[in-house]
């Protein structure tokens, strides 16, 4: 075991920070380190926090982390913000809302830029979560970029996904559209002290009723008071019903209920083969993605550096069409025969 791997397993913060940089940059040797750490992962509960910009995700992470710390958990946070597609630069500002966590050695916050990924996370986020897992953080919160309707990569990295909504962010049609609401294990209506919170809760509940046949089959919608978990999972029918939790994260309200809801989801997944099935699906997708990326990278390396630029000119002059250019480029790649 290398010195670096030992330092990570001991939870040494500088070593963790440096390895996260290596992971993000795909530095030489990082694959070996991650491979050595992998047997020490799988202990943390990974919670995704997603939702539109301005719903209060960072503030919620700040409040939720404090609540988990009071219960004695070690919390690792990965906060993802977008990279500019034009300059490759990014402003990572999630720490602004997490200042209450400063000075707590049971918390580690890392800001990450998407670096070209479109699904709400960066390519390195999954591996970064594994590093924090191996370093002993037993709760990992992944805050996605401000997500709209299609940035749903988080479900491939998290055990429990929170979708954060805020009052006045759209009508019921938004709520029944495909995409981000479908991935929620827990729906959080943050800023619940603002006008319109009740309508937002009602719209979400309508969406749930439409989407979940079990609800129509006689479960009574419980109109809880503020901060109550609105729906409960039912153990007998095998379906998880996402509870709606109202919070005022800026005021630390609703965190106990939210932690309870996350705990219920964790308990639900721990029954039978559910967690195993979830992780099997996640690993399956991860292998496909990595295979595609690695193949691409290795094949592109075989092309001369100016091959793509040369093609652009030929396409512009209408000498060749884009797909024809791709076929020509592919014909220059020597495919190594696969072993039988």
């Amino acid at each position, binding site marked *: 075991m290398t010195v670096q791997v030992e330092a990570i397993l001991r939870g040494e913060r500088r070593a963790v920070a440096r390895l996260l940089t290596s992971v993000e940059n795909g530095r030489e040797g990082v694959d070996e380190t991650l491979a050595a750490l992998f047997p020490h992962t799988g202990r943390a509960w990974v919670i995704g926090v997603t939702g539109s910009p301005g719903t209060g995700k960072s503030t919620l992470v700040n409040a939720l982390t404090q609540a988990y710390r009071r219960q004695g958990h070690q919390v690792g946070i990965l906060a993802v913000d977008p990279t500019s597609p034009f300059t490759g*630069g990014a402003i990572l500002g999630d720490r602004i809302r997490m200042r209450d966590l400063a000075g707590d050695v049971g918390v580690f916050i890392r800001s990450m830029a998407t670096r070209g990924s479109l699904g709400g996370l960066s390519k390195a986020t999954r591996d970064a979560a594994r590093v924090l897992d191996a370093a002993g953080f037993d709760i990992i919160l992944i805050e996605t970029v401000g997500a709209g309707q299609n940035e749903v990569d988080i479900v491939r990295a998290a055990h429990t996904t929170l979708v954060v909504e805020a009052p006045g962010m759209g009508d019921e049609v938004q709520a029944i559209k495909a995409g981000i609401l479908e991935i929620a294990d827990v729906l959080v209506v943050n800023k619940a002290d603002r006008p319109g919170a009740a309508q937002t809760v009602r719209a979400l509940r309508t969406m749930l009723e439409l989407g979940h046949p079990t609800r129509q089959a006689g479960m009574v919608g419980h109109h809880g008071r503020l901060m109550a978990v609105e729906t409960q999972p039912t153990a007998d029918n095998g379906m998880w019903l996402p509870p709606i939790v109202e919070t005022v994260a800026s005021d630390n309200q609703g965190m106990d209920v939210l932690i309870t809801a996350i705990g219920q989801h964790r308990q639900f997944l721990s029954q039978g083969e559910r967690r195993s099935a979830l992780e099997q699906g996640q690993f399956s997708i991860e292998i496909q993605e990595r295979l595609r990326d690695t193949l691409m990278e290795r094949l592109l390396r075989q092309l001369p550096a100016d091959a793509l630029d040369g093609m652009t000119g030929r396409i512009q002059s209408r000498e060749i069409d884009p797909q024809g250019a791709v076929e020509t480029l592919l014909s220059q790649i020597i495919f190594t025969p696969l072993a039988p």
Partner: protein
Amino acid sequence: MTAVETIRVLIAKPGLDGHDRGAKVIARALRDAGMEVIYTGLRQTPEMIAEAALQEDVDVVGLSILSGAHMALVPRIREVMDQHDLRDVPLLVGGIIPDEDKAQLEAMGVRGIFGPGTNTHDIVTFIRQIAAAKQGD
């Protein structure tokens, strides 16, 4: 290492002054130069700055100080960063720094001082140079 790695910069405002326009202008300029800028907001203590620099593994820390407290804040921040084993992370200071304090700040380990009217291009170039030297180690 063949590829050039993205430069990560922490921009922090220590102390009590609430004027963060300068810090935001710099953050934006660095972003437009392709860097990742971790912006931590106002009223950061030396401990918060050192902790953020450590967790974010930044190449450079830029401090914006307009309150006149730089002679008290800067050595304290340098000291806490050194305690966190961040001796190799250079400090830059921007804001209102009287000429007579500059030599002393540099003696405290400040690598660059940028006052009002500095061309952001000069700051970008400066950070690229010190980051390249650091990553080349």
